[in-house]
């Protein structure tokens, strides 16, 4: 808080743009770039749909089996397709030098990174959540469990995005970092997978889901508050190569 105050005091002194305006201009640019390069955000979504559509063909089309497996399949597919989209998070900005300009900005880098992660989530996580009811129904998920599944996805996918951002920031200066990011980040996202699927399973069994949701909430809060710091530190490292 103190640091933030310091920032705003400096701003008034030399007439630089306010923090809000800077974050807004970062936001606008992210959306503009995304609207001109749509496949980067459509690919993960298609990937997500294909995994779920092929699963019954590959294993078993029995409704009882699919219903039992549906939560796990949807969540694993969501996790993998989120991983797939991480490459896009910083790669282009690194290649064209935009990251340097962000690092040299007089505004706090961690807030810029938080905004970037948020925009990225609205472009990759949110569409995935929106189509997931349809795909879950394809897997015979009980309709009564759908709200719980959606709740876990809404709470869980931002965590994957934020933690993934750290990995993407660390590896952005390396060529061909695709698998490395997954190796770095996947183990850290396993708790999200366990507690999210656990919540839906508990709901199916008729047990209370409060504990699971509370833990997901903690993970979300921790990653929102801490991950941007790690990401901005990693970006500074990567840029200074």
């Amino acid at each position, binding site marked *: 808080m103190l640091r933030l105050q*310091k*920032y705003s005091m*400096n701003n008034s002194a*030399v*007439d*630089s*743009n306010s923090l809000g*305006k*800077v974050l*807004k*201009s*970062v936001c*606008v*640019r992210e959306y*503009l*770039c995304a609207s*001109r*390069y749509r496949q980067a955000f459509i690919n993960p979504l298609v990937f997500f749909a294909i995994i779920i559509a092929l699963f019954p063909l590959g294993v078993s089309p029995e409704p009882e089996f699919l219903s039992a497996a549906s939560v796990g399949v949807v969540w694993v597919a969501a996790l993998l397709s989120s991983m797939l989209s991480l490459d896009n998070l910083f790669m*282009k900005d690194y*290649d*064209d*030098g*935009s990251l*340097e*300009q*962000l*690092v*040299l*900005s*007089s*505004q706090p880098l961690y807030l810029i990174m938080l905004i970037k992660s948020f925009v990225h989530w609205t472009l990759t996580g949110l569409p995935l959540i929106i189509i997931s009811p349809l795909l879950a129904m394809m897997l015979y998920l009980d309709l009564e469990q759908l709200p719980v599944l959606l709740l876990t996805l809404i709470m869980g996918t931002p965590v994957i995005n934020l933690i993934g951002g750290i990995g993407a920031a660390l590896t952005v200066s390396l060529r061909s970092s695709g698998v490395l990011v997954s190796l770095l980040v996947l183990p850290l996202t396993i708790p999200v997978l366990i507690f999210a699927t656990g919540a839906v399973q508990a709901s199916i069994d008729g047990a209370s889901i409060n504990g699971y949701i509370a833990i997901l909430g903690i993970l979300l809060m921790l990653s929102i508050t801490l991950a941007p710091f790690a990401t901005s530190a990693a970006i500074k490292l990567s*840029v*200074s190569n």
Partner: protein
Amino acid sequence: MLKISNLACERDDRILFCNMDYAFPAGKIIQLDGQNGAGKTTLLRIISGLYGSFTGDIFWNNAPINSVRIEFNQELLFIGHKSAIKLNLTPLENLTFLIGLCHSFSEKSLFDALEKVGLYGYENVLCRNLSAGQQRRVALARLYLSRASIWVLDEIFTAIDKQGVAQLELFLAEKAKTGVTIILTTHHQLSLSDCLVLKISDFQNQNELEDAEVTEI
């Protein structure tokens, strides 16, 4: 004022420069001179705070630079090899973002700046459809809008035509008179009269010379 003291940098087991002391006078154009690979870009990145593997001190207004990083960043304009221009955006959108990172502006000033770098009529064309020189000019339009007092410009004349270079030199000289410190690298022959030259090679071979003396003894 920007001052470097006892600066040394080693890269890939090679000493780029050492014992470098220099005070960058305000309101001057300082050209870094050296061969390819001499460490010009590295020095510019060290000054800007983008490269951390060095020893020595940098002072901004007599305070260690790390303690006044935010104030310094507000006064710094850095244009590197990579010009931070997104090919999927128009010159106008690119400028809106890059200037918006620093200070507030009016839309008219953006159009004016683009006109000054010769991009009148190209404001809303995607940058990927512009030539290399024109893309470079989008980045250079930032110069006409900047309120910073330290400009760090790495090879800004690349891909710019002769006329553009001449115009830019005039503008830089004009800007320096208003008190802006301009640190730049270029392989162009600058026609500026009051341009200081900082030769990186002056700080290069001291260690080797000392080694040579030691062996003589």
